[in-house]
């Protein structure tokens, strides 16, 4: 019997039992062993860039949430409850149809993709310089992701390494300060290691200018009265200036396809619905009223007009238009299609308006425009430089940078101003006008301690964050943000309360 058993086992082992169960998926590559060359790592980072392209990450959720929270836009589509709650800053942990959760999960998905590429970069068959460039690119993308979270939700768990499922990970939240510092740390590395420019085939990938542009923005938001930080803002902005960026002579050109990868662009998201990639820039669909062919998720409000001086015609018309305006300076006038609701102001003097930035002339196709979405523009760098110079006491120098920005849109600049405080206000107002409807306003207000009407606020900016989505609180056993009190909300909203319902 024993002999027979041995025989039997031998028979099977001869058939190769050891390797017999060794199967690999053939429809997917496996991460382990995939990352060998520079191109492999780039392919991994393309996965991250692709996330930015996803409408419900940057342009739909982040941009709309911040535009609405800042009072520049509102949500007339009562079906999309999530945004309605944002209008009154009444976001709950189980927020309506989950807009904040959607954003939270998408951003962490993007961070996950990034760190799962960063993990393999040290082992690539590539020169140290290439590895550093790739690491810089990954860290820029990670910083960008955390930037999208920290101002809305406060301190986050910082993923320096890729978490592995089943290894009993405990994700501990860092403070807001630590999170901002983490962003700065990544951006500083990226600013030192990324290349200054990209070849035509790689346009769209992060550059040194992207990192320094974002670094200058982030540092300026956090600097307060810290001159050392303002010096860093200046250094970062100077680096961008040194890299040879310049303003597009035509302001509106930044928001149409002809402005793709122009000299003003520090970082943009590629879109072209007719390409094989088949992704269109849908922001104006979301921002436009349903009766005008859009989805009415974040229409510009009359409050958005406050960003502009009356003579700031070019920028106002590009960012926000109302009945009687022509869109993008085309001959056709915006009539609102005779829609009564459009014309009727509410008791708060509210009117519906549209956004011309990235306006899609073929709105009805519903596929979006082929204009790339600019996340960082050189005009902002100039304003950040002006801000830094002003804070560092170089007010005259500051005004020269502002002048560059204003000259483009045919606005005069009074270079004789000497009051640091007045210039600060002047630069801030300029920033609001220049970047209107570009998704920066909420952070600009909160981080600089201002309300929707620009007046100073008294609360701690790091407490002025939305609740973390409830499911994340439960899964991670975190303490909820409890800080945005009604008093803080009232102070922030000032007189700009959006409610015509």
């Amino acid at each position, binding site marked *: 019997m024993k002999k*027979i058993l041995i025989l*039997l086992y031998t*028979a*099977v082992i001869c*058939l190769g*039992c050891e390797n*017999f*169960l*060794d*199967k*690999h*998926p*053939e*429809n*997917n*590559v*496996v*991460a*382990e062993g995939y990352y060998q060359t520079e191109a492999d790592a*780039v*392919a*991994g*980072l*393309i*996965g991250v*860039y*692709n*996330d930015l*392209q*996803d409408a*419900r*990450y940057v342009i739909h959720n982040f941009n709309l949430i911040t535009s609405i929270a800042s009072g520049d836009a509102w949500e007339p589509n009562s079906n999309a409850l999530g945004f309605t709650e944002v209008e009154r800053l009444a976001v709950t942990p189980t927020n309506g149809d989950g807009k904040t959760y959607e954003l939270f*999960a*998408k951003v*962490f*998905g*993007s961070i*996950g*993709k990034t*760190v799962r590429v960063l993990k393999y970069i040290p082992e690539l068959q590539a020169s140290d310089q290439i590895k550093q460039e790739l690491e810089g690119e990954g860290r820029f993308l990670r910083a960008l992701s955390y930037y999208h979270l920290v101002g809305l939700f406060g301190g986050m*768990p910082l*993923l320096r390494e890729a*978490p592995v*499922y*089943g290894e009993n990970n405990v*994700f501990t939240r860092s403070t807001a300060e630590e999170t901002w510092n983490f962003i700065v740390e990544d951006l500083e590395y990226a600013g030192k290691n990324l290349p200054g420019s990209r070849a*035509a085939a790689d*346009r*769209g*990938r992060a550059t040194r200018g992207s990192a320094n542009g974002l670094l200058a923005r982030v540092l300026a938001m956090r600097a307060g009265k810290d001159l050392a930080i303002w010096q860093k803002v200046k250094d970062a902005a100077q680096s961008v200036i040194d890299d040879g960026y310049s303003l597009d002579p035509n302001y509106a050109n930044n928001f149409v396809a002809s402005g793709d*990868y122009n000299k003003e662009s520090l970082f943009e998201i*590629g*879109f*072209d619905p007719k390409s094989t*990639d088949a*992704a269109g820039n849908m922001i104006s669909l979301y921002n436009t009223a349903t009766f005008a062919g859009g989805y009415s998720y974040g229409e510009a409000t009359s409050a958005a007009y406050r960003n502009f001086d009356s003579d700031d015609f070019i920028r106002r018309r590009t960012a926000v238009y109302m009945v009687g305006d022509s869109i993008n300076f085309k001959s056709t006038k915006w009539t609102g299609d005779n829609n009564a609701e459009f014309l009727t102001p509410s008791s708060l003097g509210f009117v519906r308006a549209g956004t011309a930035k990235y306006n899609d002339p073929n709105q009805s196709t519903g596929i979006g425009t082929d204009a790339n979405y600019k996340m960082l523009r050189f005009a902002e760098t100039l304003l950040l430089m002006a801000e830094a110079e002003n804070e560092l006491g170089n007010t005259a120098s500051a005004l020269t940078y502002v002048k560059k920005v204003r000259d483009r849109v045919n606005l005069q600049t009074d270079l004789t101003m000497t009051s640091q405080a007045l210039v600060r206000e002047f630069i801030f107002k300029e920033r609001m006008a220049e970047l209107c409807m570009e998704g920066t306003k909420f952070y600009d207000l909160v981080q600089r301690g201002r309300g929707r009407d620009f007046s100073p606020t008294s609360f701690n900016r790091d407490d002025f964050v939305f609740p973390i989505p409830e*499911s*994340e609180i439960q*899964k*991670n056993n975190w303490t909820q943000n409890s800080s945005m009190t009604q008093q803080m909300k009232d102070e922030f909203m000032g007189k700009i309360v959006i409610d015509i319902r």
Partner: protein
Amino acid sequence: MNNFTKNYRRFVGWGLYFMKISALPLFLLGWLASVSVALPLHSQELLNRRVSIKVEKTSLKEVLEQLKKQSDVRFSFNSKQIDVNTPVSLAAVNEPLGQALDKLLGPLAIGYTAYSRLVVLRPLESEETKGKHTKVEDPEPLRVVTGRVTDEKGEALPGVNVLVKGTQQGVITNVDGAFSIDTPDDKAVLVFSFVGYVSEEVTVGDRVAIDVSLKVDEKSLEEVVVVGYGSKTKKEVTGAIGTMQGDVISEQAVTGFDQAMAGRIAGVQIVQNSASPGGGSSIRVRGVGTPGVSEPLYVIDGVPVFDASVSNMINPNDIQSIDILKDAASSAIYGARGANGVVIITTKQGVKGPVKVDMNYYYGVQSFEKRFDMLDASEYKDFLNARKEPFTDGSQNVNWLNEITAPAPMQNFNMNIKGGSESTTYFLSTDFLDQKGIVKGTDFKRFTTRININSKINRRIKMGTNLTFGKSWRNTRAENSLWSLLGAALYYPPIVPIRESGGQYGDAAEYLLLTNSNNPLALVEVGSYKSNLASALGNFFTEIEPLKGLVYKINLGFNYKSNVSDNYFPGYIYGVKNRRDGVPSISKGLSNETIWLIENTLTYKFSVRENHHINLLVGATQQEANNESLSGQRLNSVSKDPTLVSLNSSPSVTHRADGGFGSWSLASFLGRIDYNYKGKYLLTATVRRDGSSKFAPGNQWGTFPSVSGAWIVSDESFFNAGWIANLKLRASWGKLGNQEIAAFQYLSTLGSVTYLLGDNTVGGVFPNNVANRMITWETSKQTNVGFDMDFFNNRLTLSVDYFDKQTDGILLSDPISSVYGYTDAGGNVINSTKNAGVIANKGLEFNLGYRSRNRGVKWSANANAATLKNEVMSLGGGAPLLNSMNNGQYSTKTDVGGQIGAFYGKVVEGVGEDGHFVFAKDADGQDIQTNIGNPIPRLTYGLNGRADYKNFDCSMAFQGVAGNDIYAASLFQTGNFSYSTNNVIKSIYDQAGKTAPSLEAANGADYAGSSWFVYNGAYLRLRSVQLGYTVPLAEMKKWGVDRIRFYITGQNLFTIDKYKVGLNPEVGAFNQNNVSAGVDQVTYPTARVLTAGINLSF
């Protein structure tokens, strides 16, 4: 045009082919007739032989001896009838033998019949028979022995095998128990054998009439039950195994064996997923243990195949028996694949003896069973008026369901040839099925052939093969969607013309406001959706017996499947305005799968002393599967010629291609010991160790043990209840796995994405799964206790089983924190899966059988029933599984304490004065959302009977379920007035304002998923009834065949149920999805079938 001709030829070719096989029986009849005429020619020559003899007063015996010497003939006679000592005189000089015999025997009134070298003498009894003896062309047999076979009570036994021992010569008794057989000589021995009776051997001697009474075999329990890797007698079985014999399949005229199993085996539920031709069934053995895959493992002649499509690959007429291993102890020999039960299919084998041919042909007509009325045109117009819906009257009264359905023919031809010598037996068969569907545009054709050969090479070596090849062709139309064909045929307005005068399909949008407007006739007539499946399945084996009782077997098995689908859709054109709808497309898909198996087993059967009987099995097996697929599609522009189905026929530039490859392997060791003490105490233990490539190295192997025992109480000396012939108590326990989960979940795989850099689209990757190295099979543990009893001489049998099955570690999605950072290319969170959660199934099974042998009517009946309690015990702390369907209009919720896939929604308390539903509310005034129905039946049962009377036979099969609910999702279109212009079910319309919302008020608030859509799902269905007539023996001889039987069969003749708003109360688990079972999204109706057929045996 060329292509059209080609297809036309193909079509005609099939027609001719079919005519050919219809003509085959006639051809065979002719062949047999010519053989029987040719035989007696030699006897004339015999009687012409010249003889010379002169004797006086010599004994007849002496004279015959002399004639024998001269002419080299032998004489045969019965010495009781003919006195050979009679003195005779005869003188003949060079006379023909015949003439001499006439002279000799004539005066003695003895007749004779000559055969090639034999002359049979017999006394002449009447004038009538005189002189006939010289009719040499009379094809009477050598020596005809006739007789009758009865049972102990003197009742005729038809179908008994009567064989001349040592030859291949045999006949079967007719319905009167009568037989007639040729025997060579006095020494011949006849063997009478019949299943369930003790075989009897009778020496013919000089008799020409032999009556035999067969005794019931008290060991008829020796019915063989196929268990994994071997077989046992029924008495030896210690687990819970349900068996169905092949004749049960053939007496139902079904197209797949799965349908024949409905209601036959307690605890085995067959749910038809689609009643469309070629549509499959889900088989649920003892409930549902996982939200994932719960189909059983099929083992066909020893080849394990995990594939529910086997029912389309196997000719049901080839099946000898189906054995279903229900409890864990029985299935544990199949380890990681046994958790959902094992269905063992054994095909027919050849038998030693002369060639036997069985043929069966039936033709049937399927018709649509009308179950409810929709509004006719005038009622419908009233309805529109009440809803204040404007419309233009098309002045029609169309019943759309009638338009898309039609009585449909089906036919099946089946033939098998079997026989064999001492060393080799064979079974060959071929079968062709041609079935049209009752919904236009659907049909199914299948051709299968089989070769089963068994050979004894020598005393120690046996070899054999079982092979089947099949090809099937299927045309389908959309089903199981509220908007599909059948749904549309219900709700489409009766006032819209079928076609406009220009020939375009009528367009409801031109008559009224209708959101979902697809002319149902267009849906069955435009485009084509074809698929065909080619398959080969089989094994080769060798058995070597080096020592007595020790058998080594190597089994090589394979299964090859190739599937081709061709879809052609030119787009619809509707109405006088020629509205176009749908994206024209043409697509083709190819996929194939190859599975191979190597299996080495060793069995050793021995006894220690007298009372200890041991049977050992050890084995090692390996199985591997590879599958690949390729598909292509062109969009927007297709050819106008519907016979063009190649991708190249489309001038479109928009196209896509997809392809995939998959592979898995399973290595296993198995062992079993059967121990039997004195035939009374039985103990079986098995263990299987499986290694599966689906899991992470280091986590691939699992061990699945089982143990079972039985005690045959009735064999104890103290047991003296004579009326109980057999009493056996059984108990078993075992552990099983379910490995049917997606492979490679332990690996971090990368999916692909694209992004725009510069002006170019570039490709990239991203992690597309949450790797879980710990992932492993779902494990189920099952305990079974039961008993078998036979009463009154085995006439009444009863089996009862109780089982308790618990599945642990069911695969559930684990809602991990999104901080882990897993989202797909669209930024949606990727769920991770983990083994968590527990599901329990418990139930009682009964099987009661009765066999009568009284009087002229022989009958048997069987009743079986099973209860089932399905309960989710744990979800591993995770959230309930909510399956939201149809944009969340209705859903199922799998939660702790309830069934898998329980219906979930609001509770309707009635209709309020405002005409709206009143929903039950909680303390906060919110509508309660809760469990509102259960899809899994608490009771399944079947009733089957068979009776024989003289030449008639009759069988019947009922099947039913109770204690389950149906969620009538179809009512969203046809019942709740939600789509204002949809036609509605008349009974609901009549109840508007009473049990349904009022016509005027019905709105969105009434459409929410609620208990209003839940119906009692109980039904009792007469699945089949068959009446047969076997032509009496003498008539059969005239036809030159052994057996001719005519029969008619009716299927689904009636159904008793309370679900009068759906097309079919048998609502399946679509796409094998256990969390959408019992939700009626407009199922394909079950056809009523009437068939007439003929069986012929040669």
